[in-house]
Every structure is written in structure tokens, then in C-alpha cells.
């Protein structure tokens, strides 16, 4: 049994139709509920809920404040490589894009890592494309081991691995995984991923479960905003989150909201998500999953990020560069996508403080996983 068995019970079109048919009464019932059921969640994602955004935001704020206080965890992405064998239509690293390819050496990785460490970061996210021959498990594990002394938490956002691969990662000091399903709609998934290992929808869908089995402590999920119908995608992401919280109850869940940005290849999102819809989605997710981390990246504009702060966000990236080697060198290689909020980490920290939030640089300790020192 896996989440695949759960999601299989739903017909995506029927979910869209049900959400579209929700009424103001359904939304009011959902807003009054302490815990949402599936119908309530659908109501909050529906067009009918657009008239209740302020109420949703107030409730999302109150829940987040109680559970997380006035704190925002800051992290930074570090791209190890832009090599990739996949051909995802929306991604700058797609094999079909004629861009210079680059994989950092361990020394170059450490050089970028030291820059991030000196900026204050203690939570780091390592990213790669999918090119197992050049950038495989051993390489990622070696990178994690090399930078481990500099960070209290290392997460990865790379190709899906088998459980044994994730165990290797845990042994190397990795404690978190981010893996987006991109789209929960299997048909759309097939269209957007015409070739490469990523074509396998089920293998990707079950990835967080393999990571949970291997003992990763933090798992982040999400879908790309702009690909499918955001309301039904959000519904499935919420179901997925709840499934993981129930089955991998020792692992902390987070949900990200990556909205598609301009990238090499010129892909145009078929279903763009407006700021209002973005807010609706985020608040609905908080009302469903009170205790999940909600993550916002530098994909969004500085102004929007500042305004989204009180609505349920608990983690943010800052000062990000999405090209390998990009922290140490200007124009090092092609980036995966263009970021929008280009403020420095110090500026972000200052803004958080000015808005009454404590920027948290460290909320984990590598010692939790260091079995050999016990």
C-alpha cells in the first residue's frame, strides 16, 4: 500500500468538478471546523472561497502563530550540477536545452558552501538534475560529508532514489528531502515528461515514502504552480501531506508552493496562478495541515514574500542562486530558473525583524544523526 492506492480512488476531473461546485455555505462550514475533512478542504480551494480570503488568512495566521510562533527558518539552495537526462518541458536544465553543463568538484562545492555559511546559513539544500552516471548517490553523499561540518541541517532536492539510496544519504549526514510531484495529474505528468527516468509517475509519487522508511527527518512535497488546475493539484497535495503525516509520523512534513518562473526553453505555464489564488491555496493548506512547514522560495517577488509572511509561511530561502557555482562566480553556468527576490540574506533577516519575525538560522543539529559519536 502506498499513496498511489489512495490517489487512484479519485478521478481528477471529478475532483475539479466537485471543487467548482462548492458554495459559500460549504466555505463557511469549513471555516468553522477545527479540523478539515476532504469536503471542507475542497470548499476552501473552490472559487466560492475567493470571497472569504480575509477570514481564511486570519485563521491561517492564528494557527501558524500558535504552532510556530513569530519565527521564520532561513535556508539556502546549493546547486551541485545542472547535468540532466530528463526532458521536463518547463525546466531550464532539460536535456533538450543547449546550455553549458557543469558539475562542481568537491572543492568548488565547499567554496560555495563556505560563502553560504559565512552569510549565516546553517540549513542548506543541495540540488542536482538527474544524471546518475555523472552525479550519482556517491557524489551527493560525498558532497554532504564534505560540507557537514559547516551546517546543522543538510537537505537534498535531487532525483528520486531507492530506499537504500536514502539510507546512504542519512549516513552521510542528510536529514531532509524535498521532492515535488510537479503535477498529480498522471496524464499531464506524461505530457510534460516525455522521456528520461522521470517519466515514471508512480516511482516519483512514492519517493517521500521511501525516504520516510530510510529515516529522513524532514520531507518536503509540492507541485509546480502553473502546470495543472491548481485547485485539484492542491487537493491532491493536501491528501498526500496528510497521508505522509499519518504513515511517517516521526517525519516532519513541509509543503512548498513553487510557482513556475521564466526558464531556458521558454515554456509558458498553461494554467498560471494569480497572487490571489496563491494566497488562497496557501491559507487552505495551513487550515488543513496545522503543523506542516510551509515554504516560500525566492521565486516570488520581494513585495509578495513580505506580504505572505503572516499567512502561514514558516521557512524561506534567501539570497538564492540556481546555477551551479553561482555563489562564488558571476555567470558560472545557466540557472535552473530566474529568481525574483534578489535581496541578500542579511537584508531578508533585517526585513523579517522589522516585521516582527525572528529569522532562525539553526533549528536542527547534526548530532541527532551522528550515531558513531554516541
Amino acid at each position: 500500500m502506498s499513496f498511489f492506492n489512495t490517489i487512484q480512488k479519485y478521478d481528477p476531473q471529478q475532483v475539479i468538478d466537485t471543487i467548482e461546485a462548492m458554495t459559500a455555505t460549504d466555505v463557511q462550514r469549513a471555516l468553522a471546523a477545527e479540523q478539515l475533512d476532504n469536503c471542507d478542504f475542497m470548499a476552501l480551494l473552490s472559487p466560492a472561497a475567493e470571497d472569504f480570503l480575509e477570514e481564511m488568512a486570519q485563521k491561517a495566521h492564528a494557527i501558524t502563530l500558535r504552532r510556530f510562533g513569530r519565527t521564520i527558518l532561513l535556508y539556502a539552495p546549493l546547486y551541485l550540477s545542472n547535468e540532466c537526462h530528463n526532458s521536463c518541458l518547463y525546466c531550464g536544465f532539460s536535456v533538450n536545452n543547449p546550455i553549458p553543463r557543469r558539475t562542481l568538484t568537491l572543492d568548488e562545492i565547499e567554496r560555495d558552501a563556505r560563502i553560504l555559511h559565512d552569510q549565516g546559513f546553517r540549513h542548506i539544500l543541495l540540488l542536482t538534475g538527474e544524471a546518475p552516471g555523472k552525479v550519482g548517490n556517491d557524489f551527493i553523499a560525498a558532497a554532504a560529508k564534505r560540507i557537514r561540518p559547516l551546517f546543522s541541517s543538510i537537505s537534498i532536492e535531487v532525483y528520486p532514489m531507492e530506499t537504500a539510496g536514502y539510507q546512504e544519504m542519512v549516513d552521510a549526514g542528510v536529514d531532509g528531502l524535498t521532492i515535488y510531484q510537479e503535477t498529480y495529474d498522471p496524464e499531464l505528468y506524461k505530457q510534460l515528461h516525455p522521456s528520461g527516468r522521470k517519466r515514471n509517475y508512480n516511482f516519483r509519487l512514492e519517493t517521500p515514502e521511501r525516504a520516510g522508511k530510510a529515516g529522513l527527518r524532514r520531507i518536503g512535497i509540492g507541485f509546480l504552480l502553473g502546470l495543472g488546475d491548481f485547485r485539484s493539484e492542491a487537493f491532491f497535495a493536501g491528501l498526500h501531506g496528510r497521508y505522509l503525516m499519518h504513515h511517517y509520523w516521526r517525519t516532519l512534513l513541509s509543503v512548498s508552493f513553487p510557482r513556475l518562473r521564466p526558464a531556458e526553453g521558454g515554456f509558458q505555464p498553461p494554467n498560471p496562478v494569480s497572487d490571489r489564488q496563491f494566497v488562497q491555496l496557501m491559507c487552505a493548506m495551513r487550515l488543513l495541515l496545522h503543523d506542516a512547514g510551509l515554504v516560500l522560495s525566492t521565486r516570488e517577488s520581494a513585495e509578495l514574500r513580505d506580504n505572505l509572511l503572516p499567512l502561514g509561511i514558516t521557512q524561506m530561502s534567501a539570497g538564492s542562486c540556481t546555477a551551479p557555482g553561482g555563489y562564488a562566480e558571476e555567470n558560472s553556468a545557466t540557472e535552473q530558473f530566474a529568481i525574483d527576490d534578489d535581496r541578500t540574506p542579511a537584508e531578508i533577516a533585517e526585513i523579517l525583524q522589522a516585521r516582527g519575525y525572528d529569522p532562525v538560522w539553526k533549528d536542527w543539529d547534526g548530532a541527532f544523526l551522528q550515531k558513531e559519536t554516541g
Partner: protein
Amino acid sequence: MDKLIIAGRSFSSRLMVGTGKFSSNETMVAAMEGSASEIVTVALRRVDVDNPDDSLLTHIDPKRYLLLPNTSGARDAEEAIRLARIARAAGCEPWIKLEVTPDPYYLLPDPIETLKAAEVLVKEGFIVLPYINADPVLAKHLQEVGTATVMPLGSPIGTNKGVRNRDNIAIIIEQAIVPVVVDAGLGAPSHAAEAMEMGADAVLVNTALAVARNPGAMGVAFKKGVEAGREAYLAGLGKQQDKAEASSPLTGFLGK
């Protein structure tokens, strides 16, 4: 107010405070000062104990406060023990607030792993203050292995719901041979007063201070709540009754 004694050390305040969730170190300090607390707990995962310039730790004056490191985030006994050892090796006093919370959502303590860790840490010379569910039998087991307190939760952490586990906490207090500290879930000074009126030796508060509009003023309010509750307990509260009662309704005819 009478002194609180834990492991032979004397404290004037019966209010302990946590350091999570504050909007800044300055508001945290304001809450600590307002509360007049002398015991401050810090999550080891939030600080770098080896770094003398750690921004949170530098805000806690070791002359005024006993820094009580906690093991929150530990999933099992082994992880909690490892963190406690690291804190001591970094120069912290051997006091540890033992938290083993494998479920990162409700943060409820694991009774089995907590007891295992307590046993090891007590043997290693730590002064162990374990965070537990309000389970009287577990509380007895922990006292037998030598913990310095027991810290049952009033209601799940961060909920601000008050003393929901009242009946079991009353049993723990009645049976205790070490101080009982009601930890977690206390959302208002009246909740703290209630726990103290019941005979708890101390309370620990974090979320209620951190998310208050004015954490410093809320610290003062909790201080007063704790003091009122303690004094009422010592003064001897009258028992609660459902209806007014004449002094001798059945035997009054006898006269004096």
C-alpha cells in the same frame, strides 16, 4: 513565596520559561525579565553550544538564570542522550530537560524512550527533568530511577488549553517525592494559577509568552498567576461544593 528546591538548588521563582517562538531575542529577554524566572530552557537544536557568540545564548545571563538545555527534536533515547552529553561537554551545567518527542506534530513525549534515557543520564550524573504525559505510573518509574522532577503536560504543547489533564496531574502531585512542574499547554495566567493551586511545585510556560502582543507584560502576568496560585495552595483552599450548606443541617437540633 517559599523557595523551590530542585536537586538541592534553591530558586525564588516557581515559573520556568521557554525560549522558542519569540519574534526576537529582545522580546524573549523582556518575557524572561517580566516573569522573574530563574530557570530558562533552550532547545539544543536551536543553538550552537560550542559558539560563545551564539546569538540566543548571549542573551541569557548565566548569573541570573539557570540555563536548562532541552533535547527537543530527539526521536529516541539514544538521540536525547547524545544531545545531553554534547551540551555538558560544551560546558553547560549537567542539568537537562529531557524531551523525547518522536512525533513532530503534537510533540507528545515518548514514555518508553524517556524512561530509558532518564536511566542512563541519571547514572551519568545529570540532573534530569523529564517532560512526560500526565501518567502517574510513568512519573513513579522516573522518580525511582532518580529524576530531579517530573514535568507532566497540562495539555498538548502550544495549545494554550490549560490544565486538561487535571485528574492525572492531581494523582502525580499527590504521589510525588520530587517537585512536579506542569509543563506545556498553559495559555493564561489563570491556567498557571490553577496548576499551582492544585499543588504543583512550579510551571513552565513558553508559547503563551512568545505569542502575546506584549511578551514582557505577559511574563509579569504569569509571575502573578504563579504566585497567587502558590499562596492560595499554602493558605489552604476551601473545598468546592455544589450548593450552600448550613453548618450542621442534621444535628443542629441537638444544640451546643
